[in-house]
């Protein structure tokens, strides 16, 4: 190990010298970029902690949905944004997670809080195994293979021989106990329950991406051949990333099953996989906080277009179609203004303001 005396390197105990990122020295209104990052994370956490106290029951329920959607979008982002593997099949991993949790609660009467980790493990295995044959495929060919997974998942769940477990077309009704903490309403309790796993998984993703593994993932995305000549084991990294991405979607699926108290094959069609993709792109590819924006976009924007259409066109039955027209238009407008997603937009404008 060489000790460097360059002014902008700092020593990490036991590691190689790390050169400070020159962008960190930039200042926006006198505040350096790392501090802006830290403060916005703190503000975000504070909002996440206190928002439920200022909202109605349904609002909190929606926030909980945003949480698990963000986890799923983050899982997709790890695979697609950081490793460059296209997937249209993540609804299937969510379905596997949701059904693992659902079957454990329904058939074996396992308490809900013990189902999350097994759901993650099962989905890791599923993702890893699916990642192996998918190794040979790239780009749109991979998209088609994963798409096949997304289309097959609801059909398999409905398949008659699995019906004793999956409940067939009817799905499973799940019952969960009331909030164990007296001053929290049920909705608030499920929100904090999901928030706990959300924060855990976001921190995990952060560490994963910033370390050696993350650099390998990004290298694979940017140039697979160069990455393999650098000694990165492409097959291992790709299939493990598939598995890790599966963990995120599995936990998200399990949370959705617990929170919504109901699972059915039709909740996990490929349309859902496409929604996750939309969330990822609108939030910003290869950005971790962007997953929250993405999750919020796919939950709130369709609702918001519905409200807007209701307001302008009243009870016209044809206005149902207008909701989807305006959702589509909203997507095009966002992409026009921010071709790199919200995260890319914020980053670029911060750099512009910086001096």
């Amino acid at each position, binding site marked *: 190990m060489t000790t460097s005396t360059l002014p902008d390197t700092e020593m990490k105990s036991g590691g190689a010298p790390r050169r400070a990122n020159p962008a960190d020295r930039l200042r926006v209104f006198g505040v350096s970029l790392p501090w802006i990052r830290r403060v916005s994370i703190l503000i975000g956490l504070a909002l996440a902690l206190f928002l439920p106290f200022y909202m109605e029951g349904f609002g909190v329920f929606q926030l909980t949905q945003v949480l698990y959607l963000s986890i799923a979008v983050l899982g997709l982002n790890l695979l*697609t944004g950081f490793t460059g593997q296209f997937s249209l099949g993540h609804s299937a991993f969510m379905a596997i997670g949701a059904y693992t949790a659902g079957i454990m609660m329904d058939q074996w009467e396992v308490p809900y809080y013990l189902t999350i980790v097994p759901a993650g493990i099962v989905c890791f295995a599923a993702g890893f195994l699916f990642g192996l*044959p998918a190794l*040979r*495929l*790239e780009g*749109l*060919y991979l*998209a*088609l*293979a994963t*798409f*096949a997974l997304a*289309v*097959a998942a609801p*059909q*398999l769940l*409905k*398949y*008659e021989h699995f019906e004793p477990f999956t409940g067939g077309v009817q799905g499973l009704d799940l019952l969960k106990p009331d909030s164990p903490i007296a001053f929290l309403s049920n909705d608030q309790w499920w929100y904090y329950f999901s928030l706990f796993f959300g924060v855990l998984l976001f921190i995990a993703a952060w560490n994963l991406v910033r370390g050696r593994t993350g650099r390998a993932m990004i290298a694979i995305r940017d*140039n697979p*051949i*160069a990455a393999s*000549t650098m000694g990165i084991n492409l097959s291992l990294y790709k299939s493990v990333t598939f598995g890790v991405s599966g963990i995120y979607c599995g936990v998200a699926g399990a949370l959705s099953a617990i929170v919504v108290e109901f699972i059915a094959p039709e909740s996990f069609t490929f349309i859902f996989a*496409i929604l996750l*993709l*939309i969330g*990822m*792109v*609108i939030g910003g*590819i290869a950005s971790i906080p962007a997953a929250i924006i993405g999750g919020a976009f796919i939950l709130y924007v369709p609702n918001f277009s519905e409200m807007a259409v209701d307001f302008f066109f009243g009870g016209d039955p*044809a206005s*149902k*179609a*207008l*909701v*989807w*027209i305006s*959702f*589509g*238009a909203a*997507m*095009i407008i966002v*992409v*026009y203004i921010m*071709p*790199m997603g919200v995260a890319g937009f914020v980053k670029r404008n911060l750099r512009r303001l910086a001096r």
Partner: protein
Amino acid sequence: MPDISMVELVQQVLGGLATGAIYACIALSVVMIYQAIDHFNFAQGEMAMFSAFITWQMIDWGANYWVAFFVCIALSFIGGMAIERIIFAPLRNAPVFTHIVVFIALFQIFNAGAGYIWEFTIREFPSPFPERLPFDTTLIGPHDLGMMAVVLIMLGLIFLFFRFTPVGLAMRAAAAAPDSARLVGISVGMMLALGWGLAAAIGAVGGMMIAPVVYLEPNMMLGILLYGFAGAVVGGLTSPGGAVLGGFMMGVIEPVAGMFIGSELKLTVALVVIVTILIFRPSGMFGRVVVQRV
């Protein structure tokens, strides 16, 4: 295994070939756009559906079928070019995923737009082919036969267009090597727009051919689009002929799989077949294998 007679199997295969013709149509238009811009157009099926609705409207207003047919092709061509010029030209340098989101948005806009203008009710769409075939057969209907003929003729025309006309050659050049094409004076932007126009027109023909079979409604294209995509990918995204063959294959695999395994899982089986083919031929059956350099 269920009892399957030979006649039944032949009927299923021929019927499959006829539906396959439609998948081939969509696969072909997908490959056209893919060749021009390197992306998949998710909105292709919905554009075709919208075109079919335009034809229906013209016929409803009293136009002759063939007049409506050709006017619709012209309108779709212009519409396709307009989409490229207005929506995609400003986003040319955006990342691939941004384009995909725009495709999905277009999908929704066309789908819901058709529902808004023409409502989500199911309508009959006239077939241009005679009621009876000049020869006697129970194996295949006249519309199916006509449909296959139209698709094969169209494929021939496209082949001739790309092989022998200066514009076709310029389009291929613009797609293969945009920078070099610019240096020899080809307007690459214009060629992209032309590619979109052509793809929209091909899709429109497909839409008008399938509408009498599945009936006209805003969601009619969804299943067809999936199989069209699958056909294009299995055939190879760089090969128009492969895409057509892939489309026909998808048409046959699905009903035959349905006969043997039951209709519940036939989509799943079809998709398993695709994935298996892709594992052995990762660039599709006829796709060009691209050698990469660092």
